[in-house]
């Protein structure tokens, strides 16, 4: 573990179950994602010293903040954290500038105001220094909260759902601002969000939490392509998970039996022959066969099914195929509206697709 970054290990059985290990390098932005109640905010609170887990170790910038094995637990005010709360928690009786100055007790008093003004400028709030929180818009309040978190000169920046309280347009703008701002920050950053798109857009790595447990840590794109388990896939809202048996391994592929068909998957040498596994076909790995004309890659894992549903989603249509999976699984994918029309896809019609081998990902079963 890097000595300058953040590393933590948390374990608690009650009142909130927690079982998580993660680290974050300086300059890295890690997103903790997961459904409500997964323990995301609790994790941030444990880092900040606002929540004490039964067992845990939190180290940051070479300093130990929490070590339950030696009964060390630094109180919150002695940990150098910048925490942006979900509802910002701005002090209503202070101006924007006052909110920042309140976080600058460590700065010589002469330098406080110039530095606070500079920070406000950095988050595009020049001219609004004397406004109170109630006189600022939601987006402006969020910027004050971010600037206030930075005013502390934190060793780690913690963001708890910082974009959830603003409208969509403002959210986009603030996300872009954060993406720019983070480039100049050489500290670990931890973003808690339930919005997967936000995590994918902003984070270097993503930690997926469920019921207090860290299920997988990976780069967002990697996790979406290769989730560690069917549970992870389900939490990431990835459909098209089925069950099969490993038949054999080759250098460039693994063969699976699914129903009465043999499928080629991306190499997964870690699984034993005959082992029951889950497999996932990624969104970009489903290729529609054109009617009456051979298509590219047609021989790669052809699967035929019956159109079960056609759900229009704007300019795209989500197609759901009944492919005769005995566990009741269906295959769904989206196609542009014109492709659906040109190929004459209709409810009850038969339709064949190819499952591209490189997108066919094999996962272990619990």
């Amino acid at each position, binding site marked *: 573990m890097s000595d300058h970054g953040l590393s933590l290990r948390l374990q608690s059985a009650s009142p909130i179950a927690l079982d998580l290990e993660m680290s974050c390098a300086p300059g890295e932005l890690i997103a903790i994602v997961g459904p409500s109640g997964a323990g995301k905010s609790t994790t941030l609170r444990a880092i900040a010293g606002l929540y004490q887990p039964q067992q845990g170790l939190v180290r940051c910038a070479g300093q130990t903040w929490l070590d339950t094995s030696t009964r060390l637990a630094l*109180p919150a*005010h002695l940990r150098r954290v910048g925490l942006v*709360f979900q509802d910002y*928690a701005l*002090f209503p009786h202070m101006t924007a500038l006052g909110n920042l*100055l*309140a976080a600058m007790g460590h700065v010589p008093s002469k330098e406080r105001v110039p530095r606070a003004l500079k920070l406000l400028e950095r988050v595009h709030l020049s001219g609004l220094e004397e406004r109170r929180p109630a006189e600022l818009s939601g987006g402006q309040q969020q910027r004050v909260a971010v600037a206030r978190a930075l*005013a*502390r000169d934190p060793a780690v920046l913690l963001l708890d759902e910082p974009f959830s309280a603003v409208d969509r347009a403002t959210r986009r703008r603030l996300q872009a601002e954060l993406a720019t701002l983070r480039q100049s920050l050489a500290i670990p950053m931890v973003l808690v969000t339930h919005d997967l798109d936000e995590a994918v857009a902003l984070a270097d790595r993503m930690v997926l939490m469920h019921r207090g447990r860290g299920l997988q840590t990976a780069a967002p794109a990697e996790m979406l392509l290769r989730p560690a388990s069917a549970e992870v896939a389900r939490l990431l809202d990835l459909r098209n998970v089925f069950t099969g048996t490993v038949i054999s391994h080759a250098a460039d592929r693994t063969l699976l039996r699914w129903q009465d068909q043999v499928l080629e998957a991306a190499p997964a040498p870690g699984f034993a022959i005959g082992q029951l596994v889950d497999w996932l076909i990624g969104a970009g790995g489903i290729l529609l066969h054109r009617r009456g004309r051979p298509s590219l890659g047609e021989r790669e894992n052809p699967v035929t099914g019956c159109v079960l549903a056609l759900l229009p989603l704007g300019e795209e249509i989500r197609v759901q195929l009944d492919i005769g999976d005995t566990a009741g699984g269906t295959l769904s994918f989206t196609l542009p509206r014109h492709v659906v029309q040109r190929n004459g896809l209709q409810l009850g019609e038969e339709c064949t697709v190819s499952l591209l081998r490189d997108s066919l990902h094999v996962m272990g079963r619990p």
Partner: protein
Amino acid sequence: MMDWTALGVSLWLGVGTVLLLLPLAIWLGRRLAFSQFAGRGFVEAAVALPLVLPPTVLGFYLLSAFGMGSWLGAGFQALFGRTLAFSFEGLLLASAIANVPFAVQPIQNGFSAIPANLREAAATMGMTPWQIFRRIELPLAWPGIATATVLSFAHTLGEFGVVLMVGGAIPGETRTAAIAIYDRVQAFDDRAAGIMSAVLLVVCLVSLLLVQRLSKRVGRAGPRV
């Protein structure tokens, strides 16, 4: 005629009660608002007790507690050479106790109204618990503290039963304006009673308006930075 001495006693009693009670009420109100502890329900009930107890009952117990038979009364006598009962000091103490609910409850509400995450944010910003209390909690609980001040002061001016039981009516010592008015009415001196009543009415009204204004100014506009 107007009994200015009695009015003076009333005002001193009001100011003294507030000064004596406020630090205690801020400590207790804050604890009741923020911390969970065993016996919390009992403490809350005890705080509210003077509201429902007849003043004579409260006065009777206080009088017993102030008497020579109690350690409090005997201790006071040993220290100052006079009795606690029927003295201004005794009256002040009784008045503070009778006013506990009027001071503690608004302050407790004031602290309760502060969102928990503001205190947490302050802690993550490096403020010590004392700094959080001074810079975040006190300013935000100010409306509650101002209300407590107004209520205790005004209620002290109007207190009758407890004052009569504990203090008697010694002129210049324990004879408050409210008691002086009662005395005048007993003596069929309606004119003096009327004048004193009117003066007390104006004093109460003015003090209420004054503190109200003060609480509004500090609560709403406060120091800017």
